[in-house]
């Protein structure tokens, strides 16, 4: 593993994005539009906006980074550049961390813009410290990237990769506690939601809306999110093979 190669990979991924300004614009504008929509949907009930808006702030980076990473790495696999890189002195970890670094940075920029709008003009009130909000968004962005890297190994085409979003993320979205409290779910679903990472992303955001200060439970949620990201990266590394059939 080498820092030079990891950073070169991150820079390369970001340069690719820079050549695609429309994607960057969509990345930044779409969550802002959705948050604005949500704000005025609950125009008469600002409290509802507060407690549905905050979890969404955690879910955006996860979904967006998942989509972008799964398509980007699928392209890398199908264009032959992945095979080329694996014949070169590049450690698999250099590649994975390079992607994580690039998209982690992107998740932070997205969070900066979306939080700026939501906490400012839209007036979402969050009791917890703002820096922790960023930390949770970053953890979610990294988790999305790691999951995207992993599932892209099971997609042969871009069509399939995009289908992994409803297949992989939507069930988590339904079970994460955003639509129904996790305590009120059928026990089996409750257990399933206990092992899905998105539940902890939403839980962390909910705690941030309600509690000021840094509770040990938020720290626990963050560790679970980071742990899931590391696990998904490790699984992703296992799908990168220098030799193929």
């Amino acid at each position, binding site marked *: 593993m080498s820092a030079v190669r990891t950073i070169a990979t991150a820079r390369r991924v970001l340069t690719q994005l820079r050549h695609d300004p429309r994607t960057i614009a969509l990345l930044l504008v779409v969550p802002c539009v959705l948050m604005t929509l949500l704000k005025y949907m609950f125009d008469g009930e600002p409290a509802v906006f507060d407690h549905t808006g905050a979890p969404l702030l955690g879910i955006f980076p996860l979904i967006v980074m998942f989509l972008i990473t799964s398509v980007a790495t699928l392209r890398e696999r199908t264009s032959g550049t992945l095979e080329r890189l694996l014949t*070169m002195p590049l450690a698999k970890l250099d590649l994975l961390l390079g992607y994580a670094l690039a998209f982690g940075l992107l998740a932070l920029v997205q969070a900066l813009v979306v939080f700026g709008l939501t906490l400012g003009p839209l007036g979402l009130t969050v009791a917890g410290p703002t820096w922790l909000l960023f930390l949770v968004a970053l953890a979610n962005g990294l988790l999305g990237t790691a999951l995207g890297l992993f599932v892209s190994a099971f997609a042969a085409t871009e069509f399939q990769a995009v289908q992994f979003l409803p297949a992989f993320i939507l069930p988590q979205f339904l079970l994460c506690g955003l639509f129904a409290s996790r305590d009120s779910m059928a026990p089996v679903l409750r257990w399933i939601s206990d092992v899905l990472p998105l539940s902890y992303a939403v839980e962390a955001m909910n705690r941030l809306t309600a509690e000021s200060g840094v509770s040990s439970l938020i720290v626990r949620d963050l560790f679970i999110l980071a742990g899931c990201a590391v696990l998904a990266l490790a699984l992703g590394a296992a799908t990168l093979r220098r*030799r193929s059939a």
Partner: protein
Amino acid sequence: MNSAVSVTDLHVERGGLVVLPSVTLRIEAGSVTGLLGPSGCGKTTLLRCLVGVQRIASGEVSVLGLPAGSAPLRSKVGYVTQAPSVYQDLSVEENLRYFAAVLGAPRGDVARVIELVGLTGRERDLVARLSGGQRARVSLAAALLGTPELLILDEPTVGLDPVLRRDLWDLFHRLADTGVTFVVSSHVMDEASRCDQLLLMREGRIIAADSPQALLAETGAADIESAFLTLVSAEQRTQA
């Protein structure tokens, strides 16, 4: 003879089909060896074995004295796949700068290889906007970065303008004179005369391994295509 590549009893299967039943060959260091044969005869699979990206069933593949694909070879063996494997959404220079960083090649190397493949002036163009032949040359340029000792090129001159094709073959020979070994595949038999050594391949087997002159003398044929046909029919007679 100092061999850069030595393959013994190589057996490869893909998806339950035998692609290479049993290949044995040797490639001299500092030579330009042409791997010629019709499309689908197993050239790419054999080249992938030399690079070490192909899973093999049995046999030995030794490259520069080490088992193919071993870690120290990763900065010494350059591989150019048939389809250009470069980033379409990066410029020529950005592509090469990244691969140079991965290979640990000095920065000035990027300008050097761009000049070698004749793409000076196109540095800032996005690869997606280049022609097929230019893309192939960006892919080749990436393999020339650093100090490769063995270059494995899968059909690098397909679809190129004849003048450019001649220039690239001249480049291969110039580099071979400095000790770099080239293995170049082609399904176009008229590229044979540009090689020092030829490996003629058909249905997964090497049917001849010699210099172009020796092959012509042995078969009494006027060109390599006829020599190929003579060898195939001679083989069919011995089998019958």
